[in-house]
């Protein structure tokens, strides 16, 4: 399979490690363990992203999180030809997808080069860059 990130990336990414916060640390920790989890509201049963202290659908603070298969569909995508951040210059062109999960949340991640289409099925796949685990997607 084509790797999600190609090019000389190790060592350039010190400036782009995720700046986690108390709302999100658990999500990154789970991803690093290889677990893909989605924030969930026990009041309205809605799912959402990013992790936050209250549900954006109903305002309830009764929020937890649930394991997800990470299966979703492509909502939009871009291919970056001119990197705005110098850390990504050696990776261009690269593609970022917006993915809708059936649970009801949208996430963004890198995907390997190749044809894309509206509604194409993809799956979340954690990948490593310079010791940091990030969220990517692969076609299924």
């Amino acid at each position, binding site marked *: 399979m084509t790797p999600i990130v190609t090019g000389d990336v190790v060592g350039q990414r010190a400036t782009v490690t995720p700046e986690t916060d108390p709302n999100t640390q658990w999500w990154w920790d789970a991803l690093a363990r290889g677990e893909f989890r989605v924030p969930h509201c026990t009041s309205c049963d809605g799912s959402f992203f*990013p992790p936050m202290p209250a549900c*954006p659908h109903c305002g309830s603070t009764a929020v937890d999180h649930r394991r997800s298969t990470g299966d979703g569909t492509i*909502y939009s995508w871009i*291919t970056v030809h*001119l990197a*705005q951040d110098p850390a990504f210059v050696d990776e261009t062109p690269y593609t*970022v997808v917006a993915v809708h999960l059936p649970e009801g949340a949208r996430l963004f991640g890198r995907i390997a080069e190749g044809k894309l289409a509206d509604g194409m099925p993809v799956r979340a796949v954690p990948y490593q860059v310079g010791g940091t685990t990030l*969220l990517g997607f692969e076609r299924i």
Partner: protein
Amino acid sequence: MITTAPARRPAYAGRAAATGVGYTDFTAPGGRSVLDLALEASRSALADAGLTPADVDGICSFGLFNDSVACQAVATGLGCDDLSYVLDLNNGGSQPAFALLNAAMAVASGMANTVIVYRALNGRSGKKVGSTRFEAPSSQFRYPIGLSAYPQYIALWARRFMIETGATEEDLAAVVLAQREYSALNERAVRRDPMTLEQYFSRGYVVEPFRTVDCTVEVDAAVAVVVTSTERARDLAVPPAVIEGGAWVTGRGSGLDVADLHNWPDFSRNCQHLLAPRLWASAGIGPAEVDVAEIYDCFSPAVLYGLEALGFVERGGAAEFVRSGQTSLTGALPTNTHGGLLNEGYVHGMNTVTEAVLQAQGRGGARQVPRARVVVATSGVLVDGSAIVFRNGES
């Protein structure tokens, strides 16, 4: 759906007006401080109206990522007497119309008599909003994957707009070409060369589907406008552009910060779709009564979104409207008569609003729309935004 749109017109409607406007050079080599730029534009706007700093009792401005200077600095540099109203806003391009509405509210409520509204930044040589990294709750889900700049965020929206409406890259080109016809008439504009379709497609991608010319051009500049009572404005050196109404919206799904794209339900409809009913209700008019539209266009598809959102065209009809010349000087709805932010330069839409003021005043020069009485200007193209309606005060 909007459930809180006012059924009646707001208290400021018709009672406050934009008067003098001031600009710095947009193409100067740079090297000046933001305060220096802000003061030049502010002094120029006052002089345009026949006013002096002694007449000013309010100042309102907005910045983004600390790229501006505080209103108190401008008050100090102008040598103003005590001010009774000062408002430092944040959040960039969603703000210009909203800033003028706040000034109008201050005037109509009696809190101030004469308010300068300015935007100043070294957007080319200083902090470039297009690529500035900033700390925000959603940044951790963007920067590490190389989703790091506004051209990229809005390209994600544009792709969805193309999926939903059938719009093509030729449709984006139509916007760029139409607005180059205007910028050729605008000595202030940075990009003034006419452009053919072939030339458009010869430009490289920044981020698909955007080429360089689909993106605004960043400048070191300041723009200012003076807001006072309609009654007082009638006695000043330039005709009043009466503020007839306006609207702000933070929609459901706005997210956690200005670049959070996770929760907005539909990338093919932006904040302007949500605020349109509120905007028209506030001004007591509908889109059919508008003579000129100045639509915030940090990127080319924003014009297509805006034409649809405000009800000037049906869903999916914006590109054909542009291509058929309806947004040109002789078309049904002259649009972005300064050449847009795409060509004039990026003062975060403050120059979109001041172009609307000039058109409503009949001071658009070679690009003046004949018999322009009602002019609308929008601010913002993502999740939060504002808009304002001006009417020629002599009519």
